[in-house]
């Protein structure tokens, strides 16, 4: 067994490969040169690489490769209906459908858009339930645009899924994406007159725990949160070791629903990792307490990790993957205990995703 890590950067896609020890890494690429890779995955169903690709000049699209990046095809149909008055700005996140949903993937995009494909990525259909949502006039773009950056599928309930949109908040669907309900109770929007509105929160990353799907984790502009009732209510978790509630990335341990990892930044006004170090923080008790992980991580650094620049794999123990704006990829092969620098001096990293690779 080997592990493939797709590293999306501002200037192309890099591929890192290792055996399942995950301590020695081979770097390949870049491919898709000239494109900013906001997010790239290897579809666990067939290995196809799907990349959310953006160009300041040529717009936003999705590229796919069935041969590990040797050749690429581009989405043929991808856009927003003219009567919405919206134009596609950026593609942000590709989420594969469930096992058995052949050809289905979801795409999060700006401005506040969700798409679905049922043909493996050739044609993408806008999801009206989001694009025409009745509350849309109360959504506002965050600093990165009004991005739909998180798409989380309930592994057990085929109709249930979630999206996170900045700054509209978290929305849940129980009918496969037809209709959507805000799910933000208890999450703060300190930048609005009403700090606890129905929607308008600036969610930064949303994940569902695969082994306990009623449990959701959220890194928000205003705090770190956990929900144990499918987003019905949220509990704020920072303090007890976490130096800041502000941050973007979030990763989980697929074996342990009480474990989560975050990489806080000092504040919205000063977006660097706190205390002059690249600090990864882990909780193993559902967010009641947090510990700083240091073994193998730079202890003198002013880093930044983007929302897709942090992920975990499904091995045992899980690998944790972190890519910085300074172009380094750090990997922990033992769920955060120790870290190795798998690559350095890459362009600014926007995403890291690991996949099994035969």
């Amino acid at each position, binding site marked *: 067994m080997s592990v493939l890590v797709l590293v999306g950067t501002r200037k192309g896609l890099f591929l890192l490969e290792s055996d399942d020890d995950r301590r020695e890494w081979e770097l390949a690429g870049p491919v898709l040169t000239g494109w900013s890779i906001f997010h790239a995955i290897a579809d666990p169903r067939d290995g196809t690489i799907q990349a959310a690709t953006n160009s300041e*000049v040529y717009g936003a699209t999705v590229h796919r490769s069935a041969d590990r990046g040797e050749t690429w095809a581009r989405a043929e149909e*991808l856009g927003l209906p003219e009567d919405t008055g919206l134009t596609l700005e950026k593609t942000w996140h590709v989420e594969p459908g469930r096992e058995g949903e052949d050809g289905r993937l979801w795409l999060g995009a700006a401005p506040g858009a969700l798409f679905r494909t049922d043909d493996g990525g050739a044609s993408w259909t806008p999801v009206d339930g989001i694009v025409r949502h009745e509350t849309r006039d109360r959504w506002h773009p965050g600093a990165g645009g009004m991005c739909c950056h998180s798409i989380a599928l309930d592994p057990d309930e085929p109709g249930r899924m979630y999206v996170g949109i900045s700054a509209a908040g978290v929305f849940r669907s129980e009918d496969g994406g037809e209709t959507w309900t805000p799910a933000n109770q208890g999450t703060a929007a300190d930048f609005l007159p009403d700090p606890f509105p129905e929607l308008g929160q600036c969610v930064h990353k949303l994940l569902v725990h695969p082994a306990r799907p009623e449990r959701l984790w959220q890194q928000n502009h205003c705090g770190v949160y956990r929900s144990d009732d499918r987003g019905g209510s949220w509990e704020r978790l920072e303090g007890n070791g976490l130096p800041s509630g502000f941050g973007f990335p979030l990763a989980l341990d697929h074996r342990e629903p009480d474990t989560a990892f975050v990489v806080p930044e000092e504040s919205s006004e000063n977006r660097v990792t706190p205390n002059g170090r690249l600090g990864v923080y882990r909780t193993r008790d559902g967010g009641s307490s947090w510990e700083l992980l240091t073994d193998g991580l730079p202890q003198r650094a002013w880093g930044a990790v983007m929302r897709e620049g942090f992920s975990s794999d499904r091995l045992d123990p899980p690998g944790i993957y972190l890519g910085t704006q300074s172009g380094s990829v750090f990997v922990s092969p033992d769920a955060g205990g120790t870290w190795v620098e798998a690559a350095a001096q890459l362009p600014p990293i926007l995403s890291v995703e690991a996949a099994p690779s035969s």
Partner: protein
Amino acid sequence: MAVVLLPSLLAAEAGGRNRFELEAGTLGEALRELPVANLVLDEHGDLRRLVNVYVDGVDARDRDGLATELAGSETIKLVAAIAGGRS
């Protein structure tokens, strides 16, 4: 036949071809025939803001835009604007 010349990124997206000869009555028709039409035009058919198109050396935006009529012997050159060069 009008000749369309593509910059390197668009040529890479067109399978490595940087030169196309097309029969088209207008600039818009010519661009829509390209295999990279959806990179040059947005989903509503408008020319992307940072794509410049020169028809025999004249910026198409200074002519009739996508409605610029073609006689069939023009050289159409696509160029990425020098704006948009953010790191």
